[in-house]
């Protein structure tokens, strides 16, 4: 594997990110355009969108930000998106991106990072546990309202 760099996302990464996140029967173009506007174009240090690049290919991305006083929580780093291409998993890319985003969030003034993952997404849950995350102080509750 040649050299992989972790860098900030730029507007021209949009198509590659959409391709990395593509799932059958779902068009998320509008969602990603909004995410790029909010996390890339504005260029704020408390909003972090990183990509992993090898040559001309994007192999993964991670997105997070500082959120304050949601649910009464003091400012805290939230990682809400993580993806590594199927072909390059278990090669340390996720670890490098997560380590880098933690550094960025720390510089932005927080000392805790938080995330939320679907209970059936064993791979991603295992990854975050491997990175040292544990069940936190806030418990997610939900109810069907149909």
């Amino acid at each position: 594997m040649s050299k992989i760099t972790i860098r900030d996302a730029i507007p021209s990464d949009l198509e590659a990110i959409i391709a990395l996140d593509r799932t059958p029967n779902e068009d998320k173009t509008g969602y990603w355009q909004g995410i790029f506007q909010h996390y890339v174009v504005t260029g704020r240090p408390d909003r972090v969108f990183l990509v992993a690049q090898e040559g001309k290919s994007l192999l993964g991305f991670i997105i997070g930000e500082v959120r304050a006083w949601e649910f009464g929580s003091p400012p805290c780093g939230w990682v809400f998106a993580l993806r590594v291409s199927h072909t390059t998993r278990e090669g340390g890319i996720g670890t490098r991106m997560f380590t880098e985003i933690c550094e960025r969030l720390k510089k932005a003034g927080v000392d805790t990072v938080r995330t939320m993952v679907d209970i059936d997404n064993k791979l991603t849950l295992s990854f975050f546990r491997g990175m040292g995350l544990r069940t936190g102080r806030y418990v997610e509750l939900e109810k069907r309202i149909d």
Partner: protein
Amino acid sequence: MKLNKASLFALISVLELARDPERQLSTSDIADKYGISSHHLAKVMRNLVHQGVVQAMRGVGGGYRFAGNVNRTTLLDIIQLFETLESELDLPHWNKAAEPVVSELHSVTSEIDTVTRAILDTVTLATVLKNTRATGEGAAEESPPGRAAKTAAG
């Protein structure tokens, strides 16, 4: 949650073997190191071999070797070879009036079981080994020099 003895012995053994997948250890090696019953451990090891988690090596210097993938094997994978993780309500006799309460309690314990399984199913052996190494190193750093040297020598 209370894990049974077989699950705990299995976790201890598998983690010890997974620490160095090339190394072979006998039941006595593991039992002596952790101060557990080798008789009980032997039964556990037979089940682990049968399930393909560890491999029995025959001949001189034979023993057991970890046969899985530390990044993909979770605590739940090992535990569920020895027990089911379901909460039980110890209410052998009740009349119809208790049914709504019992039903609701079953619903709550089911929620607890779901979370318990989700946690155990996402903690890999690699994560446990990484954390135990970090804890071990931390303990060694905090120990007085003489004690640490004694531990290292042992």
